[in-house]
Structures are given as C-alpha cells and as structure tokens.
C-alpha cells in the first residue's frame, strides 16, 4: 500500500521526518519496503498566471504569462490552458525531477522561455497531456516545489493479513503512528445518522452475504474539478484521478478503509437487490471483460439484472460518466470470504476487493457516508436526505477476558497489570481489571477476539525490543529419520568420486517419464506449465534433463548425483520414496596430458562399488536386469547380501534418442531406505597372523558363463580359505576356441589357524578347478 507522508501528517498535525516514520512503522509490523520521493529535484519552477493564450500552429499554443516577477512567453502543446489560469511555470534553467534542465527553445519562430508543466513533468501524476492547473488562490511567483510541498514522501508498506484488516487506510496507519508516538488517537469521523429514510431506492439483500447495505442519493449542484490536493493524494496513494465524484469515493476509501460504489442514478431501474450469482451467470465488468460467476459470488442487481460484482467491480451499464448529475452511492458490508474467493478466482484484485476481503468494522459504512457528506460540497455535489437501509450493523464484539499472568507467561515478559492496561489503552482499547483483564477493542479492531490476540497487541504496544532473551530449557532429542544422515553421507561418497550434487524439480512432463518406462502416477490438477504436470517417478528424468542442458552448452563430461523424492500411487494414497540417483557420461578426465577414460558401464559400476563400500555396504552382487529404459545387455540389479539395493545400466539408445541425447549415458538409482538397511556396523577384526599365498589361475569357459557365476563357484569351493580374488584378464580369440573365453584370476589364500604349505595351495587349486570344471564347464588353460 502506498501511503503519502503528507496525508498522515495532515491527520496527526506533526510528525518526525519521513525516514524516522518509516523506521517506527516497520518496527510496529507495518513494514515499509521503500520510501519514494515524488517531485524530488524540482528546482526553479514558480506559480504563474496565463495572461494571454493564442494559437501558434494547429497543435501549439503561445501562452503569455505573469510570473509574479515579470512576463514570459511559453509555447505548449497542451490544450487545456486558458486565459487567467494559474499554471506551474518553469523558466529556462529550471531543473525537473527527471534530471532535465530547461533552455530557451524556438518553435516556428517563437522563442519559448521555458515550459508550463504537466503533473507528470513535476513528478506528481501520470497525466502529461494537459498542464497541471493550479487553484486560483495559488500565490503568483511562489516557488512551485514549496507551494506543492515537494518532494512528497510516499511509503510503500507491505501489509500482512492482520494489518490489512485495520491499516489498509490512512487513518489506520495514522493510529499506529500515534500510538507509537504516545499521541491521542484520531478516532475517525462521526457517523451519519439514519435520519429520514424516505425517498430512496428500495433495497433487498441476502443478509448472509451482505449484512448491511446503505444507499445515499447524491446530486450535482455545480460542475467543479476534483481539488488539487485530493487528486495529488489519490495519485500518490496509487490511484488515478478520474471524475470528481468517483475521486471522492476513492478518497474516502483510502482515508477510512470503506469502499464506496457510485452508480449513475438515472441508469438504474427499479430497486436494488443484493444476491448470490446463479449457476452459469455472467457479468461484464467495467474493464470490458465478461466474467463467469459461481454461486456464492455476490451481485448487485437492479430491475434489469446485475449492475456490479459486489465489492469487486462495477459494470458499464450503471457507470458514472462526466454527464452524470445524480448518483446512487453504495456503502455496504459484504461477506469477506465470498469477496476474497471471487477476487482470487477471477484475479480481480481491485482496491475495494482487497479491503472487503479482510473484513470491515460494522459501523464503517455509516462513518464513510458521513465523511462523503462533509466532502461533497468541495466538488459542488450534495447528499440528499433519505437513505436506503437494508440489514443491521453487526454487533461489536464483546469484552475479552485475559489473565494478566497469561500475557506475562506467553511473552516471557515481566509486565505489571497496570502496564498491560496502559499499553492497551495506547492502542485505543478499553481495559480494566486486576488478575484478569476485561479488554474491549476499539471499533476498528474487529480482528482482536481472543486472549492471544490481546497478548500480541500488548507486545506490539510495549515494543518487541523489550522482550528478554532466555534460552529455553533443553528437551530430549527425538529419533531422526535414518535416511537423513545417510543421504548426506552417500552424496558425499559420490561427490568425492567426482560427482556433482544436482537438484531437479520434482514436477515434470509426463511424456518423459513415459519414455523412461516409469509413467506418471500422480498428476497435478492445476499445473503451472506443460513441463510441470506430473510428480516424478524416477530421478532419472531430471538428471537426463540436466545432461541435455549441459550437452547443449558444450559440456560433454558429466557426472551428477541427486537425492530426492519420487512419487507413486497406491489407490487413494501417494507413496513417497527418497532416492539417490547417478548419471555419468563423456570422459572421466578432460582432454590433456593424461589419458582420458571414456566412461562405460564399468566406470559407473566401479564408482558404485567404491561408494557403497565406503558406506559400509558390503557383499555386493550384480545380476542382469530387464529395464526397458536401459540397454538390454548392459544393465544390472545391485544386491547386498542378496538384498535388492537398486539398478544401474547404460541408457537404451532408442530411449536416449527420444530424449534428444546422442551419446551413451550411464544411469543408476537406489532407494535410500534400502541403502540404510544394508549398512553394516563398523567392527574391528583381528589381523591375520599367518602369511597369505597367492596363486594365479586361468580357465576357459563358454561365453555364456558369467564371471559372477564362476566367482560364486570358486568361493563356495574354497570357503574361508579364499580371502580375495581379483580378475585380471578376460580374453577371447585365438588360441581360445570360438564361443569360449579365458578368465584369469589371482587368488589370495590364507588360513586364520596356520601357515599354508605348498601342498595346501595345490590341494585348494585342485578343489577349485574340479568345482568350476563340474559346475561351469571350465577347463584349466
């Protein structure tokens, strides 16, 4: 909300400088996000009077001026200057707020001695078509900046929902400031008395949607412009001046917080009805947009149908125009939730809607009408006696009982009862009592209804700075999710192997999940964009997107790891799993003096073996898997002690192509809970006391026999004697027969009980050969 300093100053009489006011407001919870200084830098302009106006060309006018200090001649393109008008005059040498300095300029042979200025050029309005016309009593020759009170400081205040209820108006901001400065609070204007209610339009209202509806008739007696100070305040507060009577309703809304709606009286027919929209009903709002309504939206209707979307925006049918001489003025209360819901659904955040949506004090319509009645003569209008009244003012909330001790304990502040009472009174509350306070909020605070609301007011009133600092007593730790620590440890393990931690959105395009054979199971009902329609079922989608992104930027060597959640559906429930995934492509090391390793299945497998070992996950085995996203011959499931951990493989070239990736990419994915369950306990064992024997062994087997199978048989045959085996060669081709391969292993044999002899080793090797011969068809090479 934009709040002009001068407006608040006008309400309170005197104030500290703008920067101090900003600080005070911020510390009370009205966060000032910035202070704009409108018209800052204007230097040298004065108030002048047009003494003669003549046409120079069809588009330019020659204006003779009395500057108070002499005569001057200006050329202007503005059409609204007339003889006798007071105008802002900027002689050559004047500096404008936008930084320009004026010089003599010649137009069609006429030298213009400076300019007459528009509101836009002065920095206090948007209108640059016409000259800013000053009131007739503006003193000739006075410095314009000082006449207009420039620069005008305007606070940009970010209102929280609680302040939006009572501070979305100048009076509310002034009250907060007054309380902070220890001043008397401005109460707001008096209430209009109901008086004669004859002669107004008949009004019927759905009381659930509109508890109170007041209608007043306004008539124009003279045609006058909106006073300059009103125009300036509207503009400074962020609203555009329009027509005098409309400007005045906006002015009162800004001042008091009560939105008012003027209808052109002659364009209404029959009585007014306030009702819920019917299914399928539509309205064309003032901005020319046809809005589809829903039951619960509130409509203002006359005999012919809807004339306004209540509390949000009017329609063109009963719009006030320059020709309007009689107005039906609405001052009402609408159900806040209905206005808020419609405002959000229709994205129509009008000034009125933003106020109604937060709720208004019950007496505010009466006060706003009173204020209108006071101000109307300034624009040549008058309010007729005879109000339309429908409904009743909601009763003011009752007193709140609050324990003085409750406030002390909740805040942790040693505040005496009298101090609490005084702090509340400063904010306009009535408060009395000893151990238990009876607190009655002022009419403008309908949001304060509970003891904790009162405690908050006490805190704001005495100032948050007075809160003492005391650490809370310790509480026992609670069990933490097991995968939380593992996640960091696992990421760290892969990071140390060269992987970069990546983060992807958990929302993605369902098509990509489909391509990966992991179709979306949970979709977004109201997605933000096409590529964020589904919750991911695999981290591969995001990592492959990252690969694509980096390939597009010339990075081919990519190693990424990501920890995150995937989402599956089980009936009406959604299951979430924390996963860890890897992607690896390109070469391991960049081009350079040392050999770069082009990564393949075994690069990633080696990384996984290393990292899992580091994470105390042992007894790993790998078995061929069948995943449609992966190369059919280059993928495996990973097990620890026979328990499934996850899967790795090279992407299927067809899948890669569909994802616009044209090089082999290695992928792996694990469920963190599975990794956590497989983690062993770190445990010391006694060191071997007897030396180890090392034997090399080369056997020839059928191509179809896997190394894993051979190893399994070897391990079974040798038992605990075999402490390690290392495959050091795989060979095919002559002299190894077709369809066969040679596997060479180095076996480390060791006994925990004695030193092995040569004979022990020979017997062991014989046993091993017999076993692999029988079970794998292996022959010694």
């Amino acid at each position, binding site marked *: 909300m934009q709040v002009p300093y001068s407006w608040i100053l006008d309400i309170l009489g005197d104030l500290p400088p703008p920067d101090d006011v900003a600080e005070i407001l911020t510390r009370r*919870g009205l*966060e000032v*996000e910035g202070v704009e200084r409108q018209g800052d830098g204007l230097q040298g302009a004065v108030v002048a009077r047009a003494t003669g106006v003549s046409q120079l060309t069809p588009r330019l006018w020659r204006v003779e001026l009395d500057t108070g200090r002499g005569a001057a001649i200006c050329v202007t393109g503005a059409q609204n200057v007339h003889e006798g008008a007071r105008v802002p005059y900027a002689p050559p040498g004047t500096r404008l707020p936008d930084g320009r300095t004026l010089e003599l300029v010649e137009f069609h042979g006429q030298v213009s001695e400076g300019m007459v200025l528009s509101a836009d050029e002065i920095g206090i309005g948007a209108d640059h078509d016409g000259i800013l016309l000053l009131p007739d009593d503006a003193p000739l020759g006075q410095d314009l900046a000082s006449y207009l009170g420039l620069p005008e400081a305007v606070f940009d205040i970010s209102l*929280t*929902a609680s302040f939006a209820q009572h501070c979305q108006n100048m009076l509310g901001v002034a009250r907060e400031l007054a309380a902070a400065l220890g001043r008397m609070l401005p109460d707001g204007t008096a209430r209009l008395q109901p008086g004669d209610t004859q002669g107004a339009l008949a009004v019927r209202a759905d009381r659930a949607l509109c508890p109170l509806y007041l209608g007043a008739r306004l008539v124009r007696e003279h045609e006058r412009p909106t006073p300059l100070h009103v125009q300036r305040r509207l503009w400074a507060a962020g609203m555009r001046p329009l027509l005098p009577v409309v400007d005045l309703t906006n002015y009162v809304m800004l001042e008091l917080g009560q939105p008012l709606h003027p209808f052109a009286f002659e364009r209404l027919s029959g009585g007014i009805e306030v009702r819920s929209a019917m299914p399928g009903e539509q309205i064309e709002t003032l901005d020319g947009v046809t809005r589809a309504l829903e039951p619960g939206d509130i409509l203002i209707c006359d005999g012919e149908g809807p004339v306004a979307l209540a509390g949000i925006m009017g329609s063109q049918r009963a719009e006030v125009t320059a020709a309007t001489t009689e107005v039906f003025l609405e001052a009402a209360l609408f159900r*806040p*939730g*209905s206005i*808020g819901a419609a405002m959000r659904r229709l994205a129509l955040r009008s000034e009125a809607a933003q106020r109604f949506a*937060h709720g208004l004090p019950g007496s505010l319509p009466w006060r706003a009408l009173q204020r209108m009645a006071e101000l109307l003569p300034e624009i040549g209008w008058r309010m007729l006696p005879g109000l339309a009244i429908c409904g009743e003012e909601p009763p003011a909330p009752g007193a709140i009982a609050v324990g003085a001790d409750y406030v002390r*304990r*909740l*805040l*942790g*502040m040693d505040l005496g009862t009298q101090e609490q009472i005084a702090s509340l009174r400063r904010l306009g509350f009535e408060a009395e009592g000893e151990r238990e306070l009876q607190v009655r909020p002022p009419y403008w605070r309908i949001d304060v209804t509970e003891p904790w609301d009162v405690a*908050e007011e006490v*805190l704001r009133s005495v100032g948050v*700075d007075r*809160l003492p600092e005391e*650490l*809370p007593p310790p*509480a*026992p*730790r*609670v069990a*933490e*999710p097991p995968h*939380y620590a593992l996640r*960091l440890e696992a*990421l760290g393990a892969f990071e*140390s192997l*060269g*992987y*970069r*931690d990546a*983060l992807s*959105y*958990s*929302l993605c395009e369902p098509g990509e999940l489909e391509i990966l054979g992991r179709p979306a199971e*949970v*979709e*977004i*009902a*109201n997605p*933000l964009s096409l590529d964020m329609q589904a*919750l991911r079922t695999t981290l591969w989608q*995001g*990592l492959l997107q*990252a690969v694509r*992104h*980096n390939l597009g930027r010339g990075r081919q060597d990519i*190693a990424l*790891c990501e920890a*995150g*959640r995937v989402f599956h559906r089980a009936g*009406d429930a*959604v299951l979430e799993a924390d996963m860890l995934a890897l992607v690896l492509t390109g070469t391991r090391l*960049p081009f*350079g*003096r040392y050999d770069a390793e082009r990564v393949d299945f075994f690069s990633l497998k080696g990384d996984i073996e290393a990292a899992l070992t580091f994470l105390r996950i042992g007894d790993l085995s790998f078995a061929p898997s069948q995943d449609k996203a992966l190369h059919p011959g280059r993928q495996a499931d990973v097990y620890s002690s026979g328990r499934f951990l996850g899967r790795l493989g090279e992407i299927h070239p067809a899948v890669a192509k569909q994802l616009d990736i044209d090089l082999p990419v290695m992928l792996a994915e694990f469920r963190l809970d599975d990794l956590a369950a497989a983690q062993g306990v770190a445990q010391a064992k006694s060191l071997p006391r007897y030396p180890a024997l090392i034997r090399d062994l080369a056997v020839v087997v059928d191509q179809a026999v896997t190394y894993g199978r051979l190893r399994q048989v070897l391990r079974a045959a040798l038992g605990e004697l075999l402490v390690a085996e290392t495959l050091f060669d795989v060979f095919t081709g002559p002299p190894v027969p077709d369809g066969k391969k040679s596997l060479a292993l180095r076996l480390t044999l060791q006994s925990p009980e004695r030193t092995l002899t040569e004979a022990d080793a020979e017997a062991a090797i014989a046993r091993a050969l017999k076993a692999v011969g029988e079970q794998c068809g292996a022959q010694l090479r």
Partner: protein
Amino acid sequence: MAAGSVEELRRQALEAIGGAGDLEALQAARTTWLGRKGPIVDALRSIKDAPPEQRRDLGLELNRLRDELEAILSEREQSLEGESLRRRLAQEAVDVTLPGRPRAIGGPHPLRMAEAELVRVLREIGFSIAEGPEVETEQLNFEALNIPADHPAREMQDTFYLKDLPGLLLRTHTSPVQVRAMRAHAPNPLRVICPGRVYRRDDDVTHSPVFHQIEGLAVGEGIGMHHLKATLYEFARRLFGPEVPLRLRPSYFPFTEPSAELDVGCPFCRGKGCRVCKGSGFIEVLGSGMVHPHVLREGGYDPARFTGFAFGLGIERTAMLHYGIDDVRLLYTSDLRFLTQFQGSEA
C-alpha cells in the same frame, strides 16, 4: 721384502686408486690391491721369508699401508657414490609446473551446503530433525494450521492440487510437519526442525515453484516468547557472527500469535543501506511466533498447559544471500558452469 718396496707398493696402489673414475673401477682396484690375492696379502705372507730383525717393522708397515688404502678406498667410494646419486637425482628431476594427474572433482550443491549449515547450527542448539511427506492433506497443510478455506492467507500460498486425489495437495510449507511431529510426541517436550521441499504456483527470478524451507518448533510447559527470541538470536549469531545486528519485528502468520520476523544486519553493506537490503540496512531472514492455540490443539497438546514457538525460513533465499546468487532458477538447472563455482576453481 725391503722397506723401499713397501713404499713402492704404496705409490703404485695410490696411483691405481686415484685413477679409478667410477665405483666399478674403484671396486676393481680394491680387489687388486686388498684382495686375498693382492700384493699386500702376498707381502704379508712372505714376511716369514724376510730376515728376522726386519719382520716386525715390515709387518707394521704393511698393516699400516693396508689400513691407509682401506681408508682411502672408503673415502673415495663415498665420494663417488655421492656423485653418482647426485647425477641420478639430477636426471630424475621433473618440471613441477606440469599438471598433476587429474582427479574428477565433485562437490555439494550450494543449496545443500546452506541446508547443511542451517541444520548443523540448529542441531547444536538442541533441535532434532523430523521429516514429513511432500504430498500433504489439505487438512494438515491448511486447516490444522489455522488457515480455513476462505482465509486470506491462502492467497499468499497458491497451491498445487492433485488430479483425482481430492483433499491432497503439494505442501506449500514445511509447517504441517510441525503438526505431525507434535502428534507423534505429545505430551512430551519437543524441539524439532523440519527441512524439506515445498511447492507453490509461482515462477520468476526470486520464486521457484519448487523450493526448500526449514521449520523449527519448540513445545513444552512454560515456553514463552523470550525463549523464541533467545533461540533465534543464538541461531543468527552462530550463523552470521556474534556481532551481527539483529531485530525482531512484529508480523503475521496464521499459525502463530504473536508473530515476528527476524531481520539481520545486511551483510553486504554492513547496515549502511544498499540495493540488496533496499536501503534499510537489514535483511529479513525468517518468520516466527508463538504457536497458535488452535495448532497446539491439532498437535495433541492442551493449549491451557502447553505453549510453544515456531520459526521457518527459506533455504533458497539463505543460499542466494550467502553465495550472491541472483536467479533462483540457477539452483535447479544443474548447469555445470554454475555448480562448479562453489569451491576452488578447476585449474
């Protein structure tokens, strides 16, 4: 053998040793002169043939000569060895400015680094980690947190809903984990933090539809706002340094009352006012407040007996401030040019 012959022997030996230019020649000279078949041993053996009165002196001279040659040989050997080592080392010298054998360099994501730091500090202050689902019920995400259907606060949190799954949504904040943690532990005193991913329908330079928050909650008997203040200040001082200017500012959240935001002195301009802090000298880091009685009740704590405080902050915002990142979307593109910036550069 006469005394003159010993002298002659010595002269010849010294000449031979002196002429040995490398260790091999030196070894040959040693064998020649001091070996079992060498002239000195020969001479010693033939002492018995010398006249008896000369035998003693001759023996002494020969032994002295042997010792002398032994010493010269050793010295010469050492010097040649040293020379040979020096030569070898000179040959083995490398150009130390050649690149090292490279290792692939990985590293953590800046957001994870920020999260880890926040979690570390909060765990030190006594909080334990709790987690909750990212797909949350409307009840826990809103109603349980005192945000009924037409509450204006819902407009601040534009929500993703799920197709065919009425009542479920993507959580808009980590606050529902508060309620879950309370339900799991009531009526015991509780100190938990809840880091996690949250979702809002928002996408621009400072807002990402997917982002991370960390939430803190303390519940117990006699917890007051002074405890909140001390906890937040302790947290901020550990994070930003003991001298950092701090201020609490009243604010509003539906699930806490009273509510307050914590501002820290702008680390960029040190309070003088700059673009980052919009001239105020302070930067807003977190929202907080005393847990609303409605929320305590939802969590299974009797609000007449128990009170609590809660706070929450955005991890992206913390990371962006800390590392000077100006576009939140950079955190989610996995662009290696970006990810490799947060440690010593790759040479």
